[in-house]
């Protein structure tokens, strides 16, 4: 536990030679659960992509699990849940097959999934509450369930650091609750969480620290509670209630308009 999970020192991250995030300093200890907040276009997704080697580090240093990001050999130690609403590609695939992909980084260049891997896949699917859908085609699942499949795919790798991009956006309440439960469990087991999001909503019980990105700069770094009720001081949702919208109502009560549980500006 000596190396921090993440250490950014004067990091500038972008695409090509265009800098999006500038001069970021951030250290995340192993086992922390951090929200990266900010409005659309603030650079919070670019920040997370920089940690995954999907965006270019243009200046400063970005260290992930003790190695410079470009030289991290065992990328499989990092789990990633992309910002995608659906899983389904052109061809049919079952939940088991999609989640099985998560095990591949641990298997070297050519080994196939073994009994140990299949057990981890089943466990990850069970953790997100979809054990009864293991052999169903992902296309038959709802959007929220498909997002949980993507979470299970990341969990199947048993990562030390889990990076998630908008895991709750546009997800139904049952899936949000399932997600909060599973994240609380992996966090308690010592996995470092980095959740990029507009609103902490259902996850505010899990995340303890918040970093706010605004126009490519880190403007806040501290306890989640201090980052403001609905996603930070710079979040552009002035009309939102002070309490996180999803947590506030029970399922058997009349539902608020669907918009209230979605991200309002329709991010991808």
């Amino acid at each position, binding site marked *: 536990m000596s190396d921090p999970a993440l250490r950014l020192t004067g990091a500038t991250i972008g695409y090509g030679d265009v800098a999006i995030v500038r001069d970021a300093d951030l250290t995340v200890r192993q086992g922390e659960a951090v929200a990266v907040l900010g409005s659309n276009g603030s650079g919070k997704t670019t920040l997370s992509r920089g940690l995954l080697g999907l965006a270019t580090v243009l200046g400063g240093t970005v260290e992930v699990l003790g190695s410079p990001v470009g030289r991290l050999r065992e990328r499989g130690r990092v789990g990633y849940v*992309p910002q995608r609403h659906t899983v389904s590609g052109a*061809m*049919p695939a079952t939940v088991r097959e999609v989640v099985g*992909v998560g095990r591949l980084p641990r298997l070297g260049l050519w080994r196939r999934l073994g009994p140990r891997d299949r057990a981890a896949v089943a466990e990850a699917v069970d953790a997100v509450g979809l054990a009864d859908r293991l052999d169903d085609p992902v296309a038959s699942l709802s959007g929220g369930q498909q997002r949980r499949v993507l979470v299970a795919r990341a969990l199947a790798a048993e990562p030390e650091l889990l990076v998630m991009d908008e895991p709750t956006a546009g997800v139904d309440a049952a899936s949000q609750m399932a997600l909060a439960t599973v994240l609380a469990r992996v966090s308690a087991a010592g996995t470092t969480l980095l959740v990029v999001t507009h609103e902490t909503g259902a996850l505010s019980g899990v995340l303890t620290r918040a970093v706010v990105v605004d126009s490519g700069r880190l403007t806040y770094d501290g306890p989640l509670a201090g980052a403001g009720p609905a996603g930070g001081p710079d979040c552009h949702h002035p009309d939102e209630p002070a309490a996180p919208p999803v947590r506030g109502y029970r399922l058997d009560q009349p539902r608020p308009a669907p918009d209230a549980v979605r991200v309002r500006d329709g991010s991808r």
Partner: protein
Amino acid sequence: MELLEYGFMQRALLASLMVGLAAPAVGVFLVQRRLSLLGDGLGHVALTGVAVGVLTATAPVGTALVAAVLGAVLIELVRARGRTSGDVALAVLFYGGIAGGVVLLSLAPRGQATNLDAYLFGAITTTQASDVAVFAVITVVVLAVVWMLGQRLYAVSDDEEYARAVGLPVLALNVVLAVLVASTVVLSMRVVGLLLISALMILPSAVAQLVGRSFRSTLLLACAIGVVVSVAGTAGSYYTGTPSGGTIVLLAIALFLAVTAGVTLREATARRRHGRRAEVHATHPHEHGEGCGHRAVPHGDHVDYDHDGHLHAPHRTVSGIHYDEHSERAVAAPPVGTERP
């Protein structure tokens, strides 16, 4: 079987069996990756290899294999650069390939160049005994690589960004897939033809994806369909005297249209019957499941959810999930349209 008495027919049927098996096995990954026309492009490139083989009096199968594999590697490297010029570079390579092939073949001694049609569209009389051996090796290698690396090829074809983020060797896997496609193209040059091979990669996959539930079953079904249309088309062309490649592709298209029509019809019928029998909650506000807040009620082979006194049965459809009313009475003897408790 009269057609099995001829040596050329035996060889043609063997070649069609192998190409029918291998082409869909790599084709499913191309469909998944939305790169359906890669096989077509590599077919163009292979033609230059064929021409070089004809001109230098070496076996054209070998030279075509070299040309197609080189083209495949080049294409993936250009794609990996990710520049906008990549598209143009591919066009240069593809059309350069076919133009080079046509021009080089025209330089061949008289009588040779008339074989162009056979290379492009397939012919049953052209498979040599030595070809069959080479084809067998290619088929075994292609199927072995797909068996071994299939999960990784699926991962990269499905979500390249995720594969990159978790450290799968994306470029290497893309090159492997392109080389598999190139090898399969060469396999096609006798019975299917270089211009038509792409159809045998794509169409069986397109049929299988309509009915498959898992990637694995879709792949196996695509291979089965490939073998059936390929062998049937080759045998058919013996009786009709038509080019085997065109015959095979038309068969595959006919099958594709028939299955599409069948699936559409089945879904429409199921939807109509369903709409009559049950109250349909098309816009159910949330999804029942573990922890949804409603009591789960086991009901025969499935679980209903007690939603304010209504038993809701989750029901999967192609477009997502919706809920039927399942009272005890309604399931025991479903009366038409009177299901509300």
